[in-house]
């Protein structure tokens, strides 16, 4: 390669390098500005943590690469650089002509100082780059509490919201809540989570208490309903099983009366229990109504009634495990719905005539533990020892929404099991019929009546 050609290429490379650097600095500044702005927006608006935003560092390499590429693309052509050097060397067009024609016989001799110096006055661009760099660094270093004070004071209710969401989901699965009601509750929960602000937690907690109360109320109602259904199913199951056992030993009229009572019991139960209505086949219901169930069908009926009972008990179990009803209620149910068809079969066999059968079965449906093994409902009851006051537990109950606000200025003085006493003396009635009475002393001073008096309970049952 000729000397002048080498210098042309060298000059061109220098110009390309300077232009590439210049464009790269401009692109870097632009990217740092955009990146810093994005970091600020994401941190302030969406509370994105810092670490994922560091991926923007890769953009620096990309911006620099693109900048250098674009700068080099704007590098002047070889012919233009030749023209530049031709002018600088005062070659009179020979250097330019050497690229296009044969210059044999003519000597192109570069001067001793042949290579031009490419100077870039990049103070402004570097200053701008520095500013952008500082901006990007500041966007990372500025504390989150300054960027987003609202988010920093957000009330952390995620655990509570999750618990309530699970409960709503359970109620939806168990068909306790209709889908529309469940959806409205879920939306209210989402809104509550979104608007939970730390600067006013009272509102959030009140709203959550209200929501929880709604769920608990619905759960309690569902549990009660399931309990009733289970009880009815158990009674019908017991009667069906007893008839299955004693049907061949009973007279036809007695059996018909018992069947009629069974059909009535199942009908009553099916009115409230959709599950029972769905479980019993149409044919079975028809024959039950006609009183023409055979042994095998009675056994099948008893089995299905048992399944319905278990379903209702299972629902109560789920509600209890989800802490939507008092779990102690579940332990109360242990053995409560155990049926004893043998005793009832024996009793039915002993009954003389259909009227006695009906009376016997009606007595069985009365409240009270009863049971044929211990006599009828009006038989003498046996009681265990009276309950102790020390083992008493207060039932948890959510305060009404306005209650918290009213307790705002309240101060804790101490904890006591006794009734609260007022320091201010009660005004004494000055004469009159109610003088020295307890009237107007306030509800907090009412005595708690404990169920420790057997006679009171007995009087309750004796009212019939």
């Amino acid at each position, binding site marked *: 390669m000729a000397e002048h050609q080498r210098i042309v290429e060298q000059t061109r490379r220098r110009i390309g390098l300077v232009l590439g650097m210049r464009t790269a600095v401009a692109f870097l500044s632009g990217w740092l500005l955009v990146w810093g702005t994005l970091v600020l927006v994401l941190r302030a608006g969406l509370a994105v943590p810092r670490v994922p935003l560091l991926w923007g560092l890769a953009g620096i390499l990309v911006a620099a690469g693109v900048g250098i590429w674009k700068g080099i693309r704007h590098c002047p052509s070889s012919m*233009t650089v030749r023209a530049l050097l031709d002018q600088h060397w005062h070659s009179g067009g020979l250097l330019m002509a050497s690229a296009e024609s044969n210059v044999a016989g003519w000597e192109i001799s570069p001067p001793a100082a042949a*290579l031009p110096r490419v*100077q870039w006055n990049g103070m402004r661009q570097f200053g701008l780059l520095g500013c952008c760099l500082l901006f990007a660094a500041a966007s990372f270093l500025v504390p989150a509490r300054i960027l987003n004070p609202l988010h920093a004071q957000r009330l952390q209710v995620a655990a509570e919201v999750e618990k309530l969401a699970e409960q709503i989901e359970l109620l939806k699965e168990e068909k306790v809540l209709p889908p529309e009601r469940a959806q409205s509750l879920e939306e209210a929960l989402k809104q509550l989570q979104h608007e939970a602000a730390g600067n006013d937690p009272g509102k959030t907690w009140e709203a959550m208490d209200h929501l929880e109360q709604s769920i608990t109320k619905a759960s309690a109602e569902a549990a009660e309903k399931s309990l009733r259904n289970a009880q009815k199913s158990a009674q019908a199951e017991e009667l069906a099983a007893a008839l299955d056992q004693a049907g061949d030993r009973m007279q036809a009229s007695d059996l018909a009366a018992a069947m009629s009572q069974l059909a009535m019991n199942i009908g009553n139960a099916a009115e409230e229990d959709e599950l029972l209505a769905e479980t019993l086949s149409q044919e079975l219901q028809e024959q039950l109504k006609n009183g023409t169930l055979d042994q095998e069908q009675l056994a099948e009926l008893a089995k299905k009634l048992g399944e319905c009972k278990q379903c209702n008990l299972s629902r109560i179990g789920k509600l209890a495990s989800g802490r939507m009803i008092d779990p102690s209620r579940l332990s109360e149910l242990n053995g409560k719905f155990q049926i004893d068809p043998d005793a009832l079969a024996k009793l039915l066999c002993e009954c003389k005539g259909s009227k006695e059968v009906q009376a016997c079965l009606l007595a069985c449906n009365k409240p009270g533990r009863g049971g044929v093994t211990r006599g009828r409902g009006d038989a003498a009851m046996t009681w265990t020892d009276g309950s102790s006051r020390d083992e008493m537990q207060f039932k948890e109950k959510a305060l009404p929404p306005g209650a918290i606000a009213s307790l705002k200025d309240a101060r804790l003085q101490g904890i006591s099991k006794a009734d609260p006493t007022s320091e201010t003396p009660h005004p004494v009635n000055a004469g009159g019929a109610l003088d020295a009475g307890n009237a107007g002393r306030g509800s907090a001073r009412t005595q708690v009546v404990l169920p420790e008096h057997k006679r009171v309970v007995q009087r309750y049952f004796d009212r019939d």
Partner: protein
Amino acid sequence: MTHPHEQAPASVNQTALLSPGEISHATELIKRVLQQLDQTLLGREQLHRLVLVGILSRGHILLEGLPGVGKTALIKALGQILKLQFNRVQFTPDLMPSDILGTHLLREIPGGGREMTFQPGPVFTNILLADEINRASPKTQSALLEAMQEGCVTLLGQTRELPRPFFVLASQNPIELEGTYPLPEAQLDRFLFKLNVSDVNVDVLTEIIATRRRGEPPPPAEPLTADELLHLMHVMEQIFLPRPVCRYISRLVAATHPQAHEATETVLSYVNYGASPRAAIAMAEAARAYALLEGRPSVGFDDVKAVAIPVLNHRLILNYKARFDQVSTLIIIQQLLEQMDEAGLALPADVRIQPLQSTAP
């Protein structure tokens, strides 16, 4: 690094530059002409060079100067040195086109018949001196348009070729403008150069008075032969014009228009109409001739700059603001030449190519 706009250079072996021997021979001839011109008219070296550049470019020249500064003497001397036929026409307001171009005369022919015969005018020559051209009417001035551009004359539907080479060297007086007709732009554009013939200094005047009786210049001692003139024209044809120089000329001419993106501030403020493409062609030819004068086989940027002012100064039409601010075309062209980057690097403002540095390791 390949530039998207870079054009592939033509094959190196495709064209060859003139050899140093050919150039030196032509340069010797030119020096001889110039030396004789300088002896004839004292103190006009630069003017002589530009006139010779115009002749070598086969262009027409408009000389502007006060009476008695040697315009006619210069043209006469040129005709004698180049051994070309020379006619002079003094333009007056009553001069008619036929007085220049020629006319048809009705003549009797042997045998008793009559016919129209053409009597050629003074334009049928090699060098036509149109003295005080601005004193003729526009109609007469326009009679030269075809002759200057096409090198021929059409009369009564018949076109007649003018002798080759054909040059119009016109002169006009910048004073005494009463009763004159400014040259139309179309005709001005046909002049390659407009040269100002200024006064000479005291030393030159002293030399003229001391060496010349009645101011008569000595006759040329060694005029050019026809072959030598043809050789000069032939060499001139082979002067190489590099593409960047072509581009520089194009940018320069384009920048005289206010609409051009490279137009300078003065162009934007004072120019109504810029130079025509004919100006670019004229500048390229003149730059070729200037390079030959310098003894180079190719045209450089400096050659273009040397001829830019005489090529452009009569082609820019200025507005009234320029007259009001007393801005001449000379100032505008000089600023254009100073501000325009010859190579066309189009570098950003903050990137500069500084003075050269040594490549020695």
